[in-house]
């Protein structure tokens, strides 16, 4: 199905099932521990051996020699795979550094060996006996030190390295009010609860992997490419994923080493990356240095806005596109952005929840707060004054929907923003200094092809198959709701099967594109199935109504169970998009409001209240969508207050590479969270009239926390995370 024109009325608009806060259909499995995750598939293949991964102990250099004798002789060892004996390996199109290092080492904890043994304990013990001599090379590990030795990248996504509209330099120089400030964001880790894990089994030259991966087709393709085997020979299965956040978008070392280990051992092998390896072995969100310059009239209107960002990566790695939102969020005739990339030898930087906007909004939305201070204008009012309904770079391009102003106004009213004291450091509640902060939320809505297959059986059940994944986002449930709505069935008559490369290729889970696109693909397949049913029954497809488990036309009504006839009726289709994404700018919007308390003596920061108001197209399931947003708000609190992969600049590693050292929010850090969606449908985005929502929630929230801390203390911290040591010296006495 081609989607070329804005959607008109369609079966989804009935909202009998769609739009309801349905509990997750897989909820009883997840809460009873019966949903099967990758490493626990005892059911799929017998005789599984265990792989234990050895990571490189240097940040840059090469292996001089490996001594495997002691490890090979250890009890239970079946095989040890290193780059020396793995055979020729290619590299996935989406991997920068090779997944199996040696002799060259690209980064710390790059996998250099997998030890396969009969039990986990044997594999772990033998792995300690692998002796590796390294020759350390000179690596570059310090972004700030490399800032003046950068290249102009050619980013694959997120726009060109340089953008310019009007005359930024002149307009900024002439502006009566100017802000010129620099901000830094640290390296951050995904830290999903389920480690990267895989079971691999060979049947002749055919490989099946049960793994934990957000993008099934990418994984299968890159696995085939890395192993040098045909793509048809790789099957990838991933029905349950214990969190991803971008960290499981790609083929990673666990699945490759499981496949290589299984080939070497001649039996199925399972591998989970050990938690202390994950932070350096896999990808992370790269640190940024950002400079923002804004020139404004005294009434608050922005006349010049410039955003520059520096980040680093390994060879072939991409920059963090922290400037992205600055091209679209606020009006202003004169604009510039610049993205620069330093060659660093730290682990590979890549996508993490809302790549680009998450880092960029952390800086931009403090800058707007600082500008409001300079102008003596309320920060909500300043944002409203600079709203734009068109793409500021291409004024003929309208936003398909843009309710930022309503988000801000409604949020301010609900949060009690009018009680905020604009003068910082004034409000006390016992030992706490109390402050409120606001930030806009912004993230683009991406449309991409997505396919599904639907089957109607003689029990009147519809089974949906697509390689779409559910990484906690609620895919199972909204896909079931979509099929139920389209076919006029109750939810329990729909079966959803996900995450298998044998199924039609979907959009997968990433970039908050999963919900809208995968359900639109199911919509397309169901439309085809409806046609097949009406055709078979000789009904006029224009008049046919699918409701209450039957199809009706005129005074004829046939239960769907009968319509299938002797065999199953199967339909497969994909949603494919025309150029509506070019003619309109499709984005999602929100406003974050945060209240913090800062201990007047210790500068300990506690988040006391949080509210997000979001406008993101039709909300297919308000319960699961809300969870996406509050979860992102939680991760945003982490970004604001604690998350920081500490770089050892001598040896080139993230030092705090486990869940004790890399602090993420826990229960005690997060208060009750309020979150509401504005009523919105966006017929430009897809037949579902929905948009992405899972990443919108993290964009801006860290800045809202930062602005609240400033309002509480009058101390402005521009280097994340905001920890008490950065406040103490400036605290009000």
């Amino acid at each position, binding site marked *: 199905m081609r989607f070329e024109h804005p959607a008109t009325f369609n079966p989804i608009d009935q909202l009998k099932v769609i739009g309801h806060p349905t*509990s997750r259909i*897989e*909820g*009883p*499995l*997840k*809460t*009873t*521990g*019966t*949903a*099967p*995750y990758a*490493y*626990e598939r*005892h059911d799929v293949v017998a005789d599984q051996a265990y792989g234990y991964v050895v990571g490189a102990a240097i940040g840059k250099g090469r292996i001089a020699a490996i001594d495997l004798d002691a490890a090979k002789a250890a009890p239970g060892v079946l095989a040890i795979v290193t780059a020396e004996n793995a055979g020729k390996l290619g590299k996935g199109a989406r991997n920068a550094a090779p997944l199996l290092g040696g002799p060259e080492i690209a980064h710390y904890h790059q996998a250099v060996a997998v030890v396969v043994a009969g*039990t*986990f*304990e044997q594999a*772990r013990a033998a792995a300690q006996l692998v002796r590796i001599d390294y020759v350390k090379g000179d690596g570059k590990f310090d972004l700030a030190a490399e800032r003046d030795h950068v290249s102009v990248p050619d980013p694959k996504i997120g726009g060109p390295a340089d953008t310019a509209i009007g005359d930024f330099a002149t307009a900024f120089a002439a502006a009566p009010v100017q802000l010129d400030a620099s901000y830094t964001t640290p390296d951050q880790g*995904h830290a*999903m*609860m*389920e*480690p990267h894990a895989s079971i691999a089994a060979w049947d002749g030259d055919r490989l099946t992997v049960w793994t934990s991966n957000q993008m099934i087709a990418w994984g299968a393709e890159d696995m085939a490419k890395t192993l040098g085997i045909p793509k048809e020979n790789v099957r990838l299965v991933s029905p349950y*994923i*214990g*969190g*991803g*956040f971008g960290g499981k978008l790609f083929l990673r070392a666990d699945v490759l080493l499981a496949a290589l280990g299984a080939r070497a051992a001649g039996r199925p092998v399972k591998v*989970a990356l*050990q*938690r*202390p390896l994950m932070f350096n072995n896999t990808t992370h969100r790269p640190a940024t240095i950002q400079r923002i310059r804004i020139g404004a009239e005294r009434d608050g209107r922005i006349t010049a806005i410039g955003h520059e960002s520096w980040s680093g990566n390994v060879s072939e790695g991409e920059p963090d596109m922290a400037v992205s939102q600055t091209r679209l969020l606020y009006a202003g005739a004169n604009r510039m952005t610049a993205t620069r990339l330093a060659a660093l030898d730290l682990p590979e930087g890549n996508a993490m929840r809302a790549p680009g906007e998450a880092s960029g909004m952390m800086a931009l939305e403090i800058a707007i707060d600082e500008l409001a201070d300079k102008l003596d204008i309320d920060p909500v009012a300043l944002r409203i004054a600079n709203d734009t309904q068109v793409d500021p770079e291409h004024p003929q391009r309208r936003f398909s929907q843009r309710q930022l102003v309503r988000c801000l106004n409604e949020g301010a009213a609900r949060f009690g923003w009018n009680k905020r004291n604009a003068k910082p450091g004034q409000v006390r509640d016992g030992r706490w200094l109390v402050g409120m902060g606001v930030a806009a939320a912004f993230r683009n809505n991406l449309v991409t092809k997505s396919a599904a297959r639907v089957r109607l059986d003689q029990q009147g059940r519809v089974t949906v198959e697509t390689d779409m994944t559910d*990484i*906690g*986002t*609620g895919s199972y449930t909204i896909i079931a709701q979509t099929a139920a709505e389209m076919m006029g069935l109750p939810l329990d008559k729909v079966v959803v099967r996900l995450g298998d490369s044998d199924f039609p290729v979907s959009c997968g889970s990433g970039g908050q594109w999963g919900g809208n696109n995968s359900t639109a693909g199911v919509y397309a397949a169901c439309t085809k199935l409806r046609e097949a049913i009406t055709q078979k029954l000789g009904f006029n497809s224009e008049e046919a109504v699918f409701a209450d488990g039957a199809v009706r036309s005129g005074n004829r009504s046939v239960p769907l169970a009968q319509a299938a006839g002797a065999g199953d009726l199967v339909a497969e289709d994909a949603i494919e998009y025309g150029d509506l994404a070019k003619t309109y700018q499709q984005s999602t919007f929100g406003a974050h409001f945060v209240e913090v308390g800062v201990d007047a003596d210790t500068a300990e920061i506690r988040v006391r209240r949080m509210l997000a108001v979001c406008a993101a197209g039709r909300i297919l399931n308000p*319960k*699961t969508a*809300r*969870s996406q947003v*509050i*979860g*992102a*708000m*939680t*991760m945003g609190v982490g970004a604001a207050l604690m998350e920081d992969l500490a770089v050892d600049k001598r040896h080139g590693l993230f030092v705090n590479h*486990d*869940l*004790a050292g890399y602090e*993420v*929010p*826990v*229960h*005690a*850090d*997060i*208060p*009750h969270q309020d979150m509401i969606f504005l009523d919105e449908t966006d017929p430009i985005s897809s037949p579902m009239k929905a948009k992405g929502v899972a990443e919108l929630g993290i964009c801006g929230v860290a800045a809202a926390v930062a602005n609240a801390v400033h309002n509480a203390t009058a101390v402005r911290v521009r280097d994340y995370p905001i920890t008490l040591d950065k406040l103490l010296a400036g605290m009000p006495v």
Partner: protein
Amino acid sequence: MTRVSFDVNGETHQLELDTRTTLLDALREHLHLTGTKKGCDHGQCGACTVIVDGRRINSCLTLAVMHQGDEITTIEGLGTPDGLHPLQAAFVEHDGYQCGYCTPGQICSAVAMLAEVKAGIPSHVTDDLNAPVRLTNAELRERMSGNICRCGAYSNIAEAISEVAGRSA
């Protein structure tokens, strides 16, 4: 290899184990009770929480052979998809999870935590050690902080637990 026997969810199991086997791996790899999750294997995340003789523990931090004769309850022992424990039902209703990987640990932890409160065991945030413990918002959040949820479902988890505990979050 050493023999050990313990009860899991009311059933006695005799195992012959490598002494290095953690209770977590005994459950997951030997008894195929995979509801208990391995998130970090270092006692940092709480995903492996089980209840041993009424107390919640990180099963990755204890060796299986240390549990001769113990009574162990895992998530599988609390309820089934067709017969959910009240906390399991409350987690579904309040969407107290997303990816589901920390969920069994959260639920086992919450079951034992509510029992600790009932037994009057104080926590780091208990103001008055002589008064009965009240499950305030601060108490609930402090006591559950050993169970990380990276999806960030804390606000919903607190509501699910509160509903079962008969209070508002």
